[in-house]
């Protein structure tokens, strides 16, 4: 029986659909397609509303990435607790 080159990978993001569903949803919020063209809205910390929403979505994307790397990318080294 042939050796699996990736046997030390316990879990990887590519194989978890939920990872990509959340990414698509957050990117869909981050890209400002749903605002009327030319709309700026109220200022939030000096930024137009639609820009503030995009920046907030990027913050959520970064937090989600941290979660994904921590929980959905695991190898045998993580399981053993060493580097």
């Amino acid at each position, binding site marked *: 029986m*042939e*050796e*699996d*080159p*990736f046997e*030390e*990978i316990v879990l*990887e*993001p*590519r194989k978890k659909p939920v*990872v990509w569903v959340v*990414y698509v949803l957050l*990117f869909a919020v*981050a*890209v*400002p*397609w749903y*605002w*009327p*063209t*030319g*709309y*700026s809205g109220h*200022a939030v*910390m*000096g*930024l*137009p509303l*639609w*820009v503030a929403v*995009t*920046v907030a979505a*990027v*913050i959520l*994307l*970064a937090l989600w*990435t*941290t979660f*994904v*790397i*921590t929980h959905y*990318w695991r*190898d045998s*080294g*993580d399981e053993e607790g060493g*580097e």
Partner: protein
Amino acid sequence: MITGAGETPLAFGPGAMAVVTLYLLSMVGIGWLARKRRQSDNLDDFYLAGRSMGFGVLFLTLYATQYSGNTLFGYTGTAYRIGFQWTVSILFMFSIIVGYLLFAPRLVVLSRKLSFITPGDYISNRFRSPVLTLLSTIVMIYALANYTLAQLKAMGAAVEGLTDGAVSSAHGIVALAIIMVVYETLGGMRSVAWTDVIQGVVLLTGFGVLLFIVPPLGGGLSAAVEQIGRIDPTKVGAPSLEVCNTWISYILLLGCGAAIYPQAIQRLYAGRSVRVLKRSLMVMAFMPLTTTLIALVCGVVGIVALPDLGGASTDQVLPRLCALIMSGSTAGYWLVVVVFAAALAALMSTADSALLSMSSMFTRDIYHAHLRPHSSEAELTRVGKISSWIVVAILVVIAVGTDKSLIRLLELKFEVLIQIVPCFFLGLYWKRLPAGAVLMGMIAGLVTALGLTWTGHARVAGFHAGVVGLAVNFALCCLGAASSGRSDSIAERPPSSGAGWSALSAQVGE
């Protein structure tokens, strides 16, 4: 000469010049220290620092390499021209991290098992096609040469501005290129990564300083945005649907293209462990907020503070804002010195990484693979160092004699580089993907991307020509895999020097 509003010259005095000179000389010193720390005279040690990078070094070298001089000058210039529509830059710089998640977990495992040095090592071992490996290598070297060229030109402009024209752009390019290639050939990746640590810290500091010193020039961010809304509402308003297409295109272009930067891939190889790489990527996910967002704010404030810039001079918005700050106070003067040190750091850290990567690909994937297959590791390391000097010499000659926009060069780089993406995104997971389909897809993608660009269709319905080319590329890969009829042709491949790969590669992807 770079001048500020009202032709205020941006020139440093002797004290500031001494600080900048000391900073540059310290780079050479670090190169010398890195040489002392080398463990052996082989490619693994020279190009990957012996795969020993810990979290601090790996994160800062990833950061300093990813955020270039273009982030400071090109991005502020674009924000000046199109206003908040350049918010896309925060998004596409973030998308690079998502790109890594699509292939890094598997590539890192393979690279550690099979001692890959270059991206070409993976392509060669996965597909066993010398033609595909050679074409990929040429594409990657072309893209990196193009990018390095942009960094060299920006270095020249920065030096000319620093010295108020006393040192010409050409002399600046030559001097900084020599410093760069000296520390690089002294210690290879170890030098480059260690200098990246200093450059990364300086760059982060510089952006932090910018966040505090630039907005007051426009009366504060809120006041500046309100004023722009009255003068030119399109710069603060939400973009049209076609522009949103361009946003998506940028996300695909950078998310795929920048993630497979050869120098970025080599940093994935160079980490001490997978855990170190994961920690570095987690922090990198937040870096667009501390870097590109600040560049956006600076460019937008520039619209109010410097309303009369036009054409190519819009890329000078940051130096001109700095000139205003310098003329205001002594504290402002020294803060601008930090910002310019950051600019040089950004330019040099990106250029040196690209240069080292080009040298490794020439040495490993062209010289060793096609010209001298039996050469020793010591000979290859020597060839790598010599090739660095030759590449720098060629690029310096071109940089001194050409004139193109930074952003345009960046886009042209990705138009071609992105066509390598299926090798990684599909090749690592899709066992049925044959080399012939990848090769045909790559050629078709390149022809489509370059053909569209050169015929004046750089964007189609808002999408970059490179992204359109990538769609054609992916389609051909899928068709090729579907018609291959069997799991893979690996079993029929001739034996190669990559011991153990046949057994491993046959398992790639399910």
